[in-house]
């Protein structure tokens, strides 16, 4: 199947890229809407079927194009493809008529950018797809056209352009240091580059805007509530991961021990995880809560990234853990976001099932045993085990992880609480329901058959955690449940006092 | 006040001018350059066909100057005539009915005509020639004009213009004749210089008189004119 991959790759990128041509005919807008879920399918087959390792040489593209696939990129490609397919199905049911064609055009271009950057190895095409995704994403955010949407869009665009420019500067400096146009050469060259710290700072800041580092995250809580539900699902699930991928492919892991940068990234991750949780709990709109939950989860991943930066030997192991965690978070967060748009069925029994299906991805996020969350948490715990890491803040990692777990569950409970206030009973359009259910099944069931590997961190069979691990997963949940109950009591007292 | 200032300023400038002129004349007088033209002239006098050196220079050696000079005169005449625009010459207030002037005229006019003829003839070897004769002739014309004697030929018509052009064209023809013979412009054929100069002199006298008289007569009377370009009047 070697020949097919490059062709499939070009098809995967070109299909969504040429999709906007359909917008030329006014009366094709219904067809455009139904085509949405089909766009990511070639990418999905590419991710699932091909064994990573193929390369596609495009000498005429920009400064000499090169597309390739390795295990890490395959994970991200898989995540992107699955999430966009599911969101596409959901969007078919969700979309209303006004500006339909404009939304579809922006959806197609963003998808093309997202898919392209997972495969691009040369700087030119990587940066092109990244910019395409950023600028087209703007169209998804301001789709509703309300004043708040335009404000969010303006903030998003301002920060995105700043991020783009710092990436451009970073890549320029790195490319001239490496004297080559390929991303693979960058890490080795960066290790020895004279302006290494400047380049690393620029790249971290540039991709940080997309990944929601603290102090660079302002656009996230503004953009998610205003964006249409499928858009915010995709935004939070796949597009934020692009920033993460950007770090992974450019920063010098495994070449030199950047202890300073590693420490700062760990601190940033911690601040992100806990700070976002505190802010998230105070939010009233369910999607805002989820936005903060995404920032806090990204905080955890930044934590792992910092560790990988500080300790070169552990980098390859941590890469696979980060990839696994990103996959798990993407799918869970996607289904949570899609559930925000669901309305409760009439029957009592239906409502209970719906609530369970809404809650499960949230709990999986918090690390409920037998779910992908548990596996991800265990892999992270094993990856960041204290004895295996030798850098300054290694000691603080386990307590940070537990605090992160508690924060996650608190945010999930807050989300459920705000959602219960907002959800009303009604008929769900069939495609919307199908999309949501597909997302939930992907997160809970299909996850186990996806091609990730935990490199021996968690003993087989991976879906059955050992007894001592169960307790390690459950006690942080119990603490957060207690805290939630306490908050519930205080709230009832205050409401009874007031009424 | 300014006028007085300007006056003495101009006066000073003119005095300085003439002083400098005098000084330079004094300096030039001091060291004579040797260019002895007169001696060269006397050698060639024999071939000039005229005894009197001035007439020789005028009508032979530098005859081109004289030709152009007659041209200048004709131009002045033409420009004068173009001004006149009068049809009737008989301007009443110019004519006098004074019997004494009328009687005096009867004596003077023939005398002046004879004098003009003598001057013309004397030019060959004594000071005289076409210009002096023409001037005297013109004077007689003016006298006759003031005396009221009608002179038809002065009306700005073909006759007047013929008169003006006569002298000049004869001189021009004489100049061209030699070219046909292969010699330079204005070179008289050998031996023919004397008669040719005589013919030219006499015809010139007539023309000069005609020009001066026309200039005197054509002083404007009425004010017909054409508008300046562009203004709609």
């Amino acid at each position, binding site marked *: 199947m070697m020949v097919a991959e490059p062709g499939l790759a070009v098809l995967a990128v070109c299909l969504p890229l040429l999709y906007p041509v359909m917008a030329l005919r006014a009366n094709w807008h219904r067809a455009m809407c139904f085509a949405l879920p089909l766009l990511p399918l070639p990418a999905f087959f590419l991710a699932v079927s091909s064994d990573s390792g193929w390369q596609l040489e495009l000498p005429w*593209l*920009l400064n000499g194009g090169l597309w390739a696939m390795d295990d890490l990129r395959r994970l991200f490609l898989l995540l992107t493809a699955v999430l966009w397919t599911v969101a596409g199905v959901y969007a078919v049911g969700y979309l209303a008529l006004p500006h339909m064609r404009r939304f579809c055009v922006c959806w197609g271009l963003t998808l093309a950018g997202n898919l392209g950057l997972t495969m691009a190895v040369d700087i030119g095409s990587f940066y092109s797809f990244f*910019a395409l995704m950023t600028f087209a994403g703007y169209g998804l955010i301001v789709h509703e056209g309300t004043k708040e949407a335009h404000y969010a869009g303006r903030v998003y665009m301002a920060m995105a352009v700043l991020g783009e*420019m710092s990436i*451009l500067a970073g890549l320029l400096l790195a490319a001239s240091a490496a004297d080559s146009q390929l991303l693979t050469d960058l890490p080795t060259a960066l290790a020895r580059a004279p302006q290494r710290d400047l380049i690393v700072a620029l790249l971290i800041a540039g991709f940080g805007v997309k990944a929601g580092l603290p102090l660079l995250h302002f656009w996230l809580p503004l953009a998610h509530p205003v964006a249409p539900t499928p858009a915010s699902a995709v935004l939070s699930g796949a597009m934020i991961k692009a920033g993460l991928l950007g770090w992974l492919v450019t920063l010098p892991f495994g070449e030199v021990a950047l202890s300073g940068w590693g420490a700062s990234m760990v601190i940033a991750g911690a601040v992100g995880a806990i700070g976002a949780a505190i802010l998230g709990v105070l939010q009233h709109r369910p999607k805002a809560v989820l936005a903060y939950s995404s920032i806090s989860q990204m905080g955890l991943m930044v934590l792992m990234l910092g560790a990988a930066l500080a300790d070169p030997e552990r980098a390859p192991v941590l890469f696979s853990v980060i990839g696994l965690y990103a996959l798990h978070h993407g799918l869970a967060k996607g289904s949570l976001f899609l559930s925000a748009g669901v309305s409760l069925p009439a029957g009592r029994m239906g409502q209970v099932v719906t609530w369970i299906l809404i809650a499960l991805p949230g709990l999986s996020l918090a690390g409920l045993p037998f779910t992908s969350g548990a596996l991800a948490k265990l892999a992270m715990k094993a990856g960041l085990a204290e004895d295996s890491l030798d850098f300054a803040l290694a000691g603080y990692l386990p307590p940070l992880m537990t605090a992160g777990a508690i924060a996650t569950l608190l945010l999930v409970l807050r989300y459920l609480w705000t959602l219960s206030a907002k959800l009303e009973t009604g008929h769900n359009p069939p495609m919307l329901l199908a999309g949501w259910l597909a997302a939930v099944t992907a997160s809970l069931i299909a996850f186990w058959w996806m091609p990730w590997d935990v490199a021996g961190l968690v003993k087989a069979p991976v879906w059955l955690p050992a007894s001592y691990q169960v307790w390690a997963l459950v006690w942080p949940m119990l603490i957060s449940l207690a805290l939630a109950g306490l908050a519930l009591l205080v709230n009832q007292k205050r409401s009874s006092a007031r009424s | 006040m300014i006028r007085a200032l300007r006056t003495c300023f101009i006066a000073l400038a003119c005095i300085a001018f003439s002083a400098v002129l005098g000084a330079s004349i004094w300096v030039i007088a001091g060291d004579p350059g040797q260019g002895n033209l007169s001696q060269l002239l006397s050698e060639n006098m024999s071939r000039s066909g005229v005894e009197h050196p001035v007439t020789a220079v005028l009508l032979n050696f530098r005859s081109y100057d004289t030709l152009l000079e007659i041209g200048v005169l004709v131009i002045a005449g033409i420009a004068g005539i173009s001004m006149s625009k009068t049809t009737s010459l008989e301007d009443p207030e110019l004519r006098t009915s004074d019997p004494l002037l009328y009687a005096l005229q009867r004596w003077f006019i023939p005398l002046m005509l004879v004098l003009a003829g003598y001057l013309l003839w004397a030019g060959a070897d004594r000071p005289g020639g076409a210009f002096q004769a023409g001037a005297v002739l013109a004077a007689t014309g003016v006298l006759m004009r003031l005396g009221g004697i009608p002179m038809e030929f002065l009306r700005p018509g073909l006759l007047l213009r013929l008169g003006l052009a006569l002298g000049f064209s004869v001189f021009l023809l004489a100049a061209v004749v030699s070219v046909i013979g292969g010699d330079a412009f204005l070179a008289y054929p050998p031996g023919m210089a004397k008669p040719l100069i005589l013919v030219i002199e006499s015809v010139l006298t007539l023309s000069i008189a005609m020009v001066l008289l026309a200039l005197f007569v054509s002083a404007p009377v009425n004010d017909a004119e054409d508008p300046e370009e562009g203004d709609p009047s």
Partner: protein
Amino acid sequence: MTLEQWLPVFALMISLAASLVIFALPETGYVRRTSVNLGAAVLKLVVVIVMVWGVFHGVNYGVSFTMLPGVTFVLRADALSMMFAGLSAVLWLLTTIYAVGYLEDSPNRRRFFGFFSLCVASTMGIALAGNLFTFFLFYEMLTLSTYPLVVHRGTEKALRAGRTYLIYTLTGGAVLLFAIAWLHSLAGDLSFRDGGHFVDADPDIHRSLILIFILLVAGLGVKAALFPLHGWLPQAMVAPAPVSALLHAVAVVKAGAFGIVRVVYDVYGVEASSALGLLAPLSWLAAFTILYASTRALWQVDLKRRLAFSTISQVSYIILGIALAGPLAAVGGLVHLLHQGIMKITLFFCAGNYAETLGIHRIDEMDGAGQRMPGTSVAFTIGAFGMIGAPPLAGFITKWVMGSGALAVNMDWVILVLVGSSLLNAAYFLPIVHRLWFREVKGAWPEERHWGRLETSPWLFWPPLLTAVVTVVIGVLASLPFSPLSWAELIVLREYAP
């Protein structure tokens, strides 16, 4: 006269003859005039392509005859001249098509198209000039033939703009003439030579060489709209759209930049000019112009004035690239000569379309234009993103190559300038794109005309789309053999290894 000598003269004569024929045709001869126009444009394009192919294979075209004692009139086609000639030939064809549609039923079209082809003839002359004297000859002809186009409308504003335009360009021309005459009396008749003439100039004329360089750059800087001399460009925007498209975005402005490139490369030579310490101040001036013009563009309300200020800043990219004295930066500068031309002409075409079809001149009237004219707005968006330097469009290629070129000669501050200017570009282009697509129409369009199926007349609709597609193609396929990038590399290769 062999073919090598005959072709450049023919290329020049085509548009000259076209202008004379157009002047001869009566005002009402529309069809004949349009056919003459288009025929001449196509013929010129063919000739230019043949010459490009010839120059690529090493044929050197050239003709010269002595006009004045001691001065020769030289036409020579080398790689650099073919780039500029190619650009002007291609864009002339498109702009003629556009202009025919734009001036549908306005008066004075004979005068317009006559002087229009005269302008292109002088641009072609500037491209093919073989020495400074011939260059100056066509440089001044360009000034003369653009004045009637700037004052074409005949309104009071147009006449005042024309006056300012003249004051700037004629003074610049006088300064340039003085410099050329002084250089000529100093070093005789200098024909353009790869690597320049003053590599080993003896030290005692250094001072006057520096002075002459400053005067040359000042004279050329007027047309290249360098910082203190840029005042005329925004005012010249009162001209009709095809004029501001081809002339003020491409031909006239590029003539100045092209002149500076010729002076630095083919008269002084890069080593000599950097040895004389001339290039550093030039690069600072260019950088300052880039940032200054972009900031000025921020608060321009009129669309074409904002595009004008953007032109001023973009042209200084070329000069910055040249002044960095590195081969890679030079490639960046030269390739921007083409990229900026194509992108800017797209924007001006779209501005013209909006003005002609919907009667929009100010930016705040552009809300919701995307709905009404999607084709033009897509072209505008591509052009805008190209200007910002968003990959994979042409603008990014320039910024990327120039950035790495600047780093190669370790001039790191250039990255700051590039990033800063991209930010400013984004700041004044993205709001327009936002208004186009994501805002609702405020009331009906002021001066709406219905054209049936297409959003505007076909003459006006296709040129911007075509140039937008070209922007994308020369961006994405930048490494093809005949693409602008590889042609710029060819020029710099021949320049640095004469």
